[in-house]
């Protein structure tokens, strides 16, 4: 379900992106109509529509008049590229900042990753 800590339309868009990344939604698949989606998740139809609209704007989804909305052919590739770009900024940079604060050297971190990589 959605929480109240950030705009729901963003959460809708985010959730569909996750589904595409995980493969639950494949490229070319038809997605639920916003009305179905809204009723299913018990959210406002206009809010759901705004989330879908964002994805259409980003080119992740595209509309076919009179039929519905579909996952764009290159959607997964685009999302992966986007996520990869954000990976270092969103996850690695804060980790390094925290490490610096705690006095953990970069060499230590690299060693840790090398040693534990196989276990995960």
């Amino acid at each position: 379900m959605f929480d109240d800590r950030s705009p729901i339309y963003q959460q809708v868009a985010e959730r569909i992106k996750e589904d595409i990344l995980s493969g639950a939604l494949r490229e070319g698949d038809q997605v639920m109509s916003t009305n179905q989606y809204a009723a299913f998740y018990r959210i406002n139809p206009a809010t759901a529509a705004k989330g879908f609209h964002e994805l259409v704007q980003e080119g992740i989804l595209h509309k076919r008049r009179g039929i519905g909305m579909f996952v764009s052919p290159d959607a997964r590739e685009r999302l992966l590229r986007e996520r990869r770009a954000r990976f270092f900024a969103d996850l690695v940079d804060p980790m390094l900042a925290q490490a610096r604060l705690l006095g953990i050297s970069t060499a230590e971190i690299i060693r840790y990753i090398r040693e534990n990589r196989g276990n995960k």
Partner: protein
Amino acid sequence: MTHPRADRRAAPAVEIDRLTVRYGRTTALDGLGLHLDGGRIYGLIGRNGSGKTTLLSVLAAFRRPTSGAVRVAGEDPFENERLTGDICLVGEGGHVLSERIERVFALARDLRPRWDDGYARRLADRFEVPLHRTPRQLSRGQRSAVACILGLASRAPLTMFDESYLGMDAPARYAFYEELLNDYTAHPRTVIISTHLVEEFAGLFEEVIMIHRGRLVVHDGADALRARGATLTGPAEQVQRAAAGLTTLRERQLGGIREVTVYGPLDEQRRRAAQAAGVHVEPVPLQDLFVHLTAGDGDRTLAEVRR
């Protein structure tokens, strides 16, 4: 994004102009002003006694305001033959006579111009309301369900639920949300839902109206409000700097750690600067925002928040 809205009569806009209602010496509404576009679902949020029910009563032509005016589809609803059949307000019990529920529905069928009897029966089935019982013989949850059914099946272009669902248990409430959304999609209308249970309902609302002590605190898109508040926690000095110039809803301090809840646009640059300075920035859930905006007196804050 544009929403081609339903026509004026089928989903009326609501205009509220300097609305004041007094009961003897008590002021229930104090110069309230609002404009609501037609064809949306509004959440009317306020604490007990904030004036929610009074506001809805005036819109439903249940009473006359002491001063000020309301307009539904451009007209005063009070004693307005053409309009009142298209306005429906249901409270928790619904205004029903003590007769079998099928007769309660029959009365609505005769008096409500857009009543859908088949839909009412399907809803009764879904909410497990026995049609041969009288309201007195029903559980509180079932009486709530009867009120909700009256509100839904009347298909009134302006439909208002005044905490109608309070007696229902969680599965019944969820069923109500689903039915409301489905029927609203099929028959667009203007819907106002009053509640103080923000968390569970908030997803349904396109826009939120918060009132406190008979005055408007805020009216904005539900999603806009979700992005509006932030709680800043960290070293007192840094937090103070990050919060400078923003409307403060609440402050707490424990030793050198300060926590400030602010209201207003915290832009990306400011957020990053605060985070870099070691300040923890967290979003404020709608429920908490409601609590902060309507806590105790808070009139000074309200004046700053109100636009």
